[in-house]
C-alpha cells in the first residue's frame, strides 16, 4: 500500500524533464530562425553590393586575357578560305560560311597588332552572293584601315576564289596553281527523260511563266534561257569590273582573259592576273614588307582549338547524320562564280 504512490509518483516526477528539454530545443530553434532571418538580410545586402561591383567592373576582353604574358608585336593576320564558298546555313561555328569569313576579316582589320592581312585561298569559288560578301568586306576593311591585303594561292584559286583575291593589293601564287576561270555558271540537270521512263509526272501551278525557272523536271524554254543568260551576263560584268578595278587593268584587257578558261600560276602572272610566284612564307614576307614590319612577321591565325576538335568530330560523325544526304538532295541550282573542274 505504501509503495503504490511511490511507483505512480516516479513517472510523474520524470514527466516535466522531456517537456523542459523540448521547450529548450524549441527556444533555441526559434533563436536560430531569427538569426537565419538576420543572416538572410545581411546576405541580401552583400549580394546587392557584389552585383553593383560586378556591373561597375569593366568587361574584360578575352583576347586581352589570352595575350597576357605575351609580348605584343606587330603581326600579319591570316584568314583561311578553303573549299567551296557558300553562305552556310549551319549554326555550327566551325562550318565557316562567307559571313564568318567576313567577320574574321573585320576582326583582324580592327586588331591594332595586325598590320596586314593575308588571305590563304584554296577554293574553286562558290555562290555569287557569298563571294561578293567576302569581297565587299575586304574593300570596306581596306578603306577603313588602309591595311594591306595579300592573297596567297595554293592548289586552286579559281573563279570566286580569284574574285575575292582581286580585291587584294598583292597576289602570290605557286607556278602550278590553278587559277582564272573568270566567269559565271548556272547549271541545272534535266530529269525529264528519266521521269518519263519511271512514270513520274510533275505538275507546277505557277503565277508567272518564269516562276519555275530552272526546274529539273522539264526542258528549259527559249525565253527562260534568254532570261538566265541576261542574269549571267550581268554577274559576269560585275566579275570583270571587280577584276579590272582590283588589278588596275582596263575592262577591255580583262574581257579576253575572262572567257572561263583556267590558267596556271605562271601563265596568270604573265597575263597580269597574279603579281608574283611564291609559297606561303613568301606571301607572309610580302605582307610584312607591305605593312612595314619586315620579313618573317609574327602570324596571327585563328586559334580556336575547340572549334577544330568539333570540326574533326563532326567530320567523323557526318556519315551517320541525315544532314549531308538532305543537303545533297535539296541542292537547288544557283548562280555561281565557280570552277567545276576539280
Amino acid at each position, binding site marked *: 500500500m505504501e509503495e503504490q504512490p511511490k511507483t505512480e509518483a516516479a513517472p510523474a516526477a520524470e514527466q516535466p524533464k*522531456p517537456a523542459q*528539454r*523540448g521547450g529548450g*530545443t*524549441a527556444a533555441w*530553434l*526559434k533563436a*536560430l*530562425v531569427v538569426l*537565419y532571418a538576420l*543572416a*538572410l538580410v*545581411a*546576405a*541580401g545586402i*552583400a*549580394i546587392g553590393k*557584389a*552585383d553593383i561591383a*560586378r556591373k561597375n567592373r569593366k568587361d574584360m576582353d578575352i583576347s586581352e586575357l589570352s595575350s597576357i604574358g605575351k609580348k605584343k608585336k606587330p603581326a600579319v593576320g591570316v584568314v583561311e578560305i578553303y573549299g567551296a564558298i557558300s553562305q552556310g546555313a549551319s549554326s555550327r561555328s566551325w562550318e565557316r560560311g562567307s559571313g564568318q569569313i567576313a567577320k574574321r576579316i573585320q576582326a583582324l582589320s580592327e586588331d591594332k597588332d595586325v598590320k596586314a592581312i593575308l588571305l590563304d585561298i584554296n577554293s574553286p569559288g562558290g555562290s555569287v552572293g557569298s563571294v561578293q560578301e567576302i569581297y565587299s568586306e575586304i574593300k570596306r576593311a581596306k578603306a577603313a584601315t588602309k591595311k594591306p591585303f595579300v592573297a596567297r594561292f595554293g592548289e586552286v584559286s579559281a573563279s570566286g576564289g580569284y574574285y575575292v583575291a582581286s580585291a587584294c593589293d598583292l597576289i602570290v601564287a605557286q607556278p602550278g596553281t590553278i587559277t582564272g576561270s573568270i566567269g559565271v555558271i548556272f547549271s541545272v540537270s534535266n530529269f525529264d527523260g528519266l521521269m518519263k521512263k519511271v512514270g513520274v509526272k510533275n505538275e507546277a501551278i505557277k503565277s508567272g511563266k518564269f516562276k519555275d525557272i530552272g526546274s529539273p523536271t522539264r526542258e528549259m524554254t527559249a525565253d527562260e534561257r534568254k532570261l538566265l543568260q541576261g542574269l549571267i551576263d550581268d554577274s559576269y560584268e560585275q566579275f570583270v569590273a571587280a577584276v579590272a578595278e582590283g588589278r588596275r587593268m582596263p575592262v577591255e584587257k580583262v574581257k579576253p582573259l575572262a572567257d572561263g578558261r583556267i590558267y596556271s600560276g605562271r601563265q596568270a602572272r604573265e597575263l597580269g592576273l597574279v603579281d608574283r610566284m611564291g609559297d606561303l612564307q613568301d606571301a607572309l614576307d610580302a605582307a610584312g614588307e607591305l605593312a612595314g614590319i619586315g620579313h618573317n612577321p609574327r602570324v596571327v591565325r585563328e586559334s580556336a582549338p575547340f572549334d577544330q*576538335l568539333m570540326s*574533326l*568530330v563532326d567530320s*567523323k560523325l557526318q556519315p551517320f547524320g541525315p544532314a549531308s544526304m538532305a543537303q545533297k538532295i535539296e541542292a537547288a541550282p544557283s548562280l555561281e562564280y565557280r570552277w567545276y573542274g576539280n
Partner: protein
Amino acid sequence: MDPLKTLTALIDRPESLSGADRPEGLGRTGMLGYAVGTLSLFAFMRMQSAVPPGVFSFLAVLLFVLAANFFFAGIIHLFMDLTGVQGSASRLFLAFGCSDLLLALLLPLGLLARGGLLNAFVGLCLGFLLVICARVALVRRLYPVSKNKALLSVWLPYFGLSAVFFSAFIYGLAWSIWLLM
C-alpha cells in the same frame, strides 16, 4: 503541424524517425529543409557571383538539389535493401531534407568569405561536411546499421557518380586520341 514542433520532436526524440508511424509533419519539414538549404546555398553562391540572379536560377538549383537527393536516397535505400537491411526510402528522402537545414550555416560562412576572413571553398566544404555527418546519423536512425556501413552508404552515390564521370572522361580521352590517329 508546425515544422518547428516537428524539428523539436525529431531532435528530442530521434528514435521516432524509425517508429511504426511516420513522424507528424515530416513531409512538410523535409521539403522546407530542402527549400531553406537551397536558399542558403544559392545565397552563398550569389555572394561569390557563381550563379546568375533571378527566380528561375534559384528554381533551377532547387530542382537540381531535389533531383540529386531523390537519386541519392534511392541509391542508399537500394544498397541497404540489397544488403538485407529494411527501412523506408521516403522517410530517408525527407530526413535528408531536414539535414539540409544545416546548410543555413552557409549564410554566415558566405558573409565571412565576402569579408575575406574565410576561403569560400573551405566554407562550402565545411557546410557539406556537416550535412554528411548529419546524414550518417540519420541513416543510422532509419536503418539498423553500423556507423561504418552508414558512412559507406552515404558516400556511395558520390563514389558511383565519380566513377561514371571518370570512366566517361577516360573514354572521351581515348576517343579523341582515336580521332586524331
